């Protein structure tokens, strides 16, 4: 028994909203060091935006749209996060030592570069992918 559903409103709103959420999630990720947010929250938000797409459309369409195997993103994220830790060893410091500095470039102004951000990228990937994998796998079971 299947309803033929006209999801006009839903689809159209999602088209706008999903983009905003995705952007917002990336913002959350970068904001993390100074404002609420960070790799973790950003990752989950990203997962939510993709999730919204799954909710609106169907699995096949999203899989076509995003031909990514999320499963591989999990170890990738972990490798980045664990790998960043080795930077400390390169500088003869303990594992997981983070470095940062403020740089001033003409035209751009002062900005901060921190290895912690790279670490956070790993977190972000791992979390986003994990959340998606969990949901999509369970949803995909017949």
């Amino acid at each position, binding site marked *: 028994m299947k309803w033929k559903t006209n999801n006009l409103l839903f689809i159209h709103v999602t088209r706008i909203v999903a983009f905003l959420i995705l952007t917002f999630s990336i913002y*959350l990720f970068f904001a*993390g*060091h*100074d*404002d*609420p*947010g*960070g*790799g*973790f*929250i950003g990752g*989950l*938000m990203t*997962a*939510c935006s993709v*999730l919204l797409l799954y909710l609106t459309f169907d699995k096949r369409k999203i899989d076509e749209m995003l031909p990514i195997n999320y*499963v591989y993103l*999990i*170890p990738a*994220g*972990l490798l980045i*996060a*664990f790998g960043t*830790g080795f930077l400390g060893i390169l500088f003869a410091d303990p594992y*997981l030592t*983070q470095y*940062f*500095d*403020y740089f001033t470039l003409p035209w751009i102004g002062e900005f*901060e570069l*921190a290895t*912690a951000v790279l*670490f*956070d990228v*790993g*977190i972000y990937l*791992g*979390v986003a*992918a*994990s*959340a998606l*994998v*969990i*949901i999509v*796998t*369970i*949803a*995909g*079971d017949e």
Partner: protein
Amino acid sequence: MSFLHWAILIPFLFAIIVPMLYKYIRPVHTGWFILIVPSVLFVFFLPYINPVADGETFMETVPWVPSLGINFSAFIDGWSLLFALLITGIGALVVLYSIYYLDKKYEDLTNFYVHLLMFMGAMLGVVLSDNVIVLYVFWELTSISSTLLISYWYHRDASINGALKSLNITVLGGFAMLAGFALLYVMTGTFSIQEMIGQAGGVIDHPLFLPTIILILLGAFTKSAQFPFHIWLPDAMEAPTPVSAYLHSATMVKAGIYLVARFTPLFGGAPEWFWIIAGGGLLTLLWGSLSAIRQKDLKGLLAYSTVSQLGMVMCLLGLGSAALYFDDANELYTVAILAAVFHLFNHASFKGSLFMTAGIVDHETGTRDIRALGGLMLVMPATATISLIGAASMAGIPPLNGFLSKEHFFMAITDATEYGIFNMETAGMLFPVIGWLASVFTFVYCCIFFFKTFAGPFEPERFAKKVHEAPIGMLISPAVLGLVVVIVGIFPNLLSQSIIEPSMAAILQGLPTDAEAFTVDIEHWHGFDLELFMTIGVVGFGSLLYLAMGKWRKLSIYNKTTDPFSPVYDSGITGLLKGSRLITNVQMTGRLRDYLTFVSAFFLIITIWTMIRYDAFVIDTQNISEISTYEVVLVGLLVISMLALPFIQQRVAAIVVLGFVGFLIALFFVNFRAPDLALTQLLIETVLVILFMLAFYHLPEFRKEKMKASFKWSNALLSFGVGLMVTLIALSAFSYGQGHDFSPVSDYYIENSADLAGGYNMVNVVLVDFRALDTVLEVLVLGVAALAVVALIRLKMKEGDDI
């Protein structure tokens, strides 16, 4: 590593190569190679006789685990030398016998000889070790190898049962003995027997003395099949006969005797020691001889006879220990020790030969049932002759060696009435009476053994196979032992100086060895004294009893062959199985609810107890911050939502309420200034709600729980208790912490987040920098969970796909 160490280890080393010998040199019976070991060792032990007889002892020490005080010290004195010679000498004979007994075509010789060699080494280890722990190591190895030898025909249920029974009982004793040794260590600070003997006085007066000797004697009594632990020995007769002859009559069962004698210098003189050993031995003597009469199985009869004879030796050791009470080498006491040592040797000789002849009978006729046997004297004259010598010696017929030791036994127990210690004036009369009675029974079963087997008409049709005399090779070993019986019977003083005196000196260590009492001179004739009359009585009454057998053989007690204590053991085992099943199933119900009930109850009990014990409940009301109205409402909402959860009947409703709870908690995080937490909580709650729906779409609605009201209430009460305790401890812990002005670690983060870590969101800085490991690990957990979900959902295997 000295020769003594090698002597112990060689059998083990040889055992390792046996499988290869068996595998690659099939034409030669493996036994011939094995025979080398005991023979060579026997020859090497012989030269010790002279120096030991001169009072020398040898101690060789190799450190094994010195940190724990465990040294592989080999010690040889008269007593251990006697055993070493028995083990190797009889060992050689038994191996020789086994070569003919076990057919290399049909039998798995590997197992047999590996275990036999293991046993031999272990037994040498027991008697040559000075360190009690090393002794214990070998002690247990004898139990294990004995078990394996009994189970040699492991496809038979009887073999398995016999093996397990012997293992259970002897290891029970072994473990007790280990505890006893540990207690000795607690008392003396050493594991060396000789060093302990040096501090003997302190041991006897120690409050732990009684438990110690009880534990150690448990080891000795179980091993030496003393009443009521003797029940394993008859069942052990399922072993191949060479094993019975070797382990279960000549050597292993005497390990308990060895141990008691070995510890006599340490414990001797104490009334507890005296009574337990002498009394236990006496009881065993009586019980064993009585039971032996009832046996219908040749080996069963011999087994009970062994029980009885070992009881006798044990009893003698107990009586002899009195010498140490007086610190006096008076012959009044030492004769008991003399009798013990002498009889120990004699028993090994005649019982070994009897077992072997019984084995021959079994081997040649296919049966050991006394009721089926008879008249074999004509077809198996050699076997019959050897049996006659052995049985006569056992019955105490002069001039055989059994007679001599039995005489000394009578002498010792009649002397006991004169001790004047430990209430012996009154109770002492029991000894000669019981001893004499038991000797009568002994005489009777010796008659049964010999006459029922060999006398009477021979009816070949009663046997499954054609009966003829055993091959000569099989007869050599029993014949040699029979010869020993005769020679020692005629020239007993061959042993006096070489074996008996040094052994007595070892057992009564500390007493002046040059004393008159240590000069052993065994004579056949010492006048018409009480002992002689007792012997005559034994023969007379025994003959009468045997002749009257037709009368009493119909008694039901005669026809019941099972030992009354066997059912006790059996029901013990069944009870153990049933009881453990009951106890296990009461807890391991398979119900998660039960498990959690136990766990919560335990949590409650233990925390409440600690709370009360340490009077730990403190509430510092000053530190409870003021609460706004809206917070009260929020708390109320959260509490209501949570409390509603158990009452919800629709699963989606539960999921929705779960969402409420999550959202409210996020609100609390906001209220308590934790934006990151609020964000995380919201995100996770949403994902969880979706997950719940995905997963539980298929599930049925909650059913009305049909629980008993009491059940429901106990659950509610437990839950309430858990909640309450968590809260109470929390309040107390918080108030306690507020009462101490430890500077919180967090100040450091507040001061340094921006400057040292370059971030302004402290929570995030803590996460990615101060405690980055936590963070990467938490993502690891999440990642593993995700991979796990994939594996869980997609991988579907059946039981038995792999192992």
